[in-house]
């Protein structure tokens, strides 16, 4: 039961490290950083506070970079099965960096700043490799500018917008997946109305030197409490959002990961800019199989497995790594994330199953400590999302 205490000396610190310690956070190694997993309130209370009011997250471990130049969007599009070129200025979109086999190197968010500049946020554990990959693949076509002197905060929850509007009048004009440069209590920042909780909220990029002051200003607002990575994980799972390294990785393609919605028509078969991304042949074939599957003729050889939501029919948490079986005892998949959802008030999970078992409503069993736990394939999110779309 003892927590591991590896050589913490080599861990990086975000600009908010001292504040986390001052707030009584339990710090754990995450993505090479010492990060707050929870504060004294505890995971459950932090999770519920975010769903009820507003929670402040330090996500400064994530990578921030800019791709600059007239060819940046066209170049970036060659790395992802996503429409980058047509994203209007002022808007943000979800993207997926792929390897040549169509496996996912990372998932990310990118924002069109206009004037040939894309602002990109990638996962902390992947950022060094991502930046090297982007530099190697498209460094000759645009300027790749890492932003290591910037921190990233998230303010999430139904009261996030009203709270921020008090400090930055007009910020409420942004709708989901839009954003821009603002001042928050006089501190320059770049915000997007997005997040990783399923709630309305903002992500806030700010200069490292201003981060502590901004975080303290936000925490001084009556609605706001600090939230650790533990609740961040339970919130995102209830929202049906993937955790890179658990639910998606280099061995999963976007189609297997049920991320078809992230691949716009223009990049698909018959689209104006069809293909032209790593692993395109495989992914377009899988998309065709998935589309046929929607019509009731799934090609199980081309698309062997799919990511699905799962709900346990007993109150037993089913965690990542748990084997999924048919009721006949045949292995048909594996759980990649799972916990008791504090808001869902049920044991929820996501995992990969053979496509024949991927239809919502399908019953199967998880083998937990040798005992079968019945589960049902479910649509996601497990808790309704509340993004502000205007």
């Amino acid at each position, binding site marked *: *039961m003892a*927590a591991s205490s590896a050589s913490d000396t080599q861990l990086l610190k975000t600009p908010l490290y001292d504040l986390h310690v001052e707030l009584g956070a339990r710090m754990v190694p995450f993505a090479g950083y010492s990060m707050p997993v929870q504060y004294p309130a505890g*995971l*459950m209370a932090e999770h519920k506070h975010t769903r009820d009011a507003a929670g402040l997250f330090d996500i400064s471990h994530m990578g921030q970079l800019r791709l600059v130049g007239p060819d940046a969007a066209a170049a970036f599009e060659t790395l992802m099965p996503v429409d980058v070129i047509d994203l209007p200025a002022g808007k943000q979109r979800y993207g997926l960096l792929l390897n040549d086999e169509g496996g996912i190197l990372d998932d990310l968010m990118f924002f069109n700043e206009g004037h040939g500049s894309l602002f990109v946020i990638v996962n902390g554990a992947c950022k060094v490799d991502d930046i090297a990959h982007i530099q190697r693949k498209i460094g000759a076509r645009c300027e790749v500018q890492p932003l290591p002197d910037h921190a990233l905060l998230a303010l999430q929850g139904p009261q996030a917008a009203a709270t921020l509007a008090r400090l930055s009048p007009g910020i409420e004009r942004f709708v989901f997946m839009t954003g821009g440069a603002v001042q928050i209590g006089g501190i320059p920042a770049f915000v997007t109305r997005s997040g990783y909780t399923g709630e309305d909220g903002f992500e806030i990029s700010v200069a490292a030197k201003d981060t502590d002051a901004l975080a303290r200003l936000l925490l001084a607002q009556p609605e706001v409490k600090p939230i650790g990575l*533990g609740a961040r994980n339970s919130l995102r799972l209830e929202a049906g959002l993937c955790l890179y390294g658990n639910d998606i990785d280099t061995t999963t393609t976007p189609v297997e990961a049920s991320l078809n919605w992230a691949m716009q028509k223009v990049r698909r078969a018959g689209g104006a800019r069809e293909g032209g991304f790593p692993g395109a042949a495989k992914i377009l074939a899988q998309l065709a199989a998935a589309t046929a599957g929607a019509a009731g003729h799934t090609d199980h050889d081309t698309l062997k497995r799919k990511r699905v939501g799962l709900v346990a029919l007993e109150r037993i*948490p089913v965690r990542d790594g748990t084997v999924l079986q048919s009721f006949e005892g045949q292995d048909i998949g594996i759980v990649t994330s799972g916990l*008791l959802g504090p808001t869902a008030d049920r044991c929820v999970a996501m995992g990969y199953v053979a496509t024949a078992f991927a239809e919502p409503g399908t019953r199967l069993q998880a083998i937990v*400590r040798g005992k079968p736990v019945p589960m049902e394939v479910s649509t996601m999110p497990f808790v309704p999302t509340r993004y502000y779309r205007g």
Partner: protein
Amino acid sequence: MSIKYTKDHEWVSAEGGAATVGITVHAQDALGDVVFVDLPEVGKTFAQGEVAGVVESVKAAADVFMPVSGEITEVNEALRADPSLANTDPLASGWFFKVKLSEPAQLDALLDAATYDKFAAES
């Protein structure tokens, strides 16, 4: 009656040939909000060190080890129904199971309160 502790952060309250077992304040604090316990079957026999149950918070699952060899005589159904008792009252109403000791001498090798507190503070 004597209360002893293990390096697996469990407590053992023994009297006569029987003992009650639970997890320590330190253990429940490290786990966070407990949402599920898997308790052993009454009548089942375990050797010291075997996994007899599981305690889970939202973020983690931890094995509950048998601190002393013996037979399970009773499990805490109230804890099964309300796992948060492991957080709110770990040393009393949040107990896990009762054991009929097969080797009572094992108790002597467990930690006393002062030794356990020192161990927990360092872990």
